[in-house]
């Protein structure tokens, strides 16, 4: 009992690489749930941004704990590409809204042929 509780306590007080990776995983799964379950196209884009942020956390965590600056450089690139993709996604969403007055993807399932 004693060793289990002290091990549990060290899990809480000694914050290491694993903690950041678990945080990143949790955030990634939340983003994944958002993409799967939400029907608003813009909220799906936001969930994708959430997933990219989770990946950024894991890059920086690895960069710090392996003493390597390449983690931060990768995050630079990921951030830029995510911002660019968000811009294009929103431009597309605005075009769709202008045409159909809807951004709910449920609506577009009925457009056939």
């Amino acid at each position, binding site marked *: 009992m004693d060793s289990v509780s002290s091990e549990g306590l060290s899990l*809480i*007080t*000694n*914050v*290491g*690489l*694993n*903690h*950041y*990776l678990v945080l990143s*995983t*949790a*955030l*990634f*799964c*939340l983003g*994944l*749930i*958002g993409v799967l*379950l939400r*029907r*608003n196209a*813009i*909220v799906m884009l*936001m*969930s994708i*941004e*959430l997933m990219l*942020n989770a990946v*950024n*956390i894991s890059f*920086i965590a690895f*960069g*710090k704990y*392996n*003493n390597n*600056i390449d983690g931060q*450089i990768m995050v*630079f*690139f990921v*951030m*830029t*590409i*995510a*911002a*660019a993709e*968000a*811009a*294009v996604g929103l*431009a*597309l969403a*605005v*075009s769709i809204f*202008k045409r159909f*007055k*809807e*951004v*709910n993807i*449920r*609506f577009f399932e009925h457009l056939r042929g």
Partner: protein
Amino acid sequence: MTADAFLFWFLAITTIAGGITVVSVANPIYAALSLAFTMVSVAAVFVTLEAYFVAGVQLIVYAGAVMVLFVMVLMLFDLKHELEAFARGKVSGAIKLLTAGLLGGLLIGAIAYSPEGSKIAVGANQVAVAGDPTKNLGYRLFTQHIFAFEALGVLLLVIAVGAVALSRSKGGTHGQR
């Protein structure tokens, strides 16, 4: 509990809470605002990981520009008649949740059982680079990764032109129904 550990747990809770709010509220504007809050929290996580410049860039680019764009577009749309915010069908919804949970479980299991990760102690590997870490970052970015950096610039140019071209379609966002 040291200050580092307390800070990590506090930021982890705020980040996860923000993430849950993003995917669970029905009103998309609240989702966008809570995503902005999550971005700020992630920037704070970067600060605890000693990546100060990247934290500042996260604040400027993500929380200060990208999310403002999201919120502005959502306010322009003015979606009063949300058909359905969430996917219909309880069974398929449950399967999706289960899949995401399975992926999360697999990843956490891989993290917990990988030998490398569990042996790195806190503070054993300080980022011991010569001089200012930000200077080092800039130096590496402009010497080793110069091609990718320039390619990124070209990508941004293409994106800007593309976004302008996409938004030239006729018709306004209101008053034509």
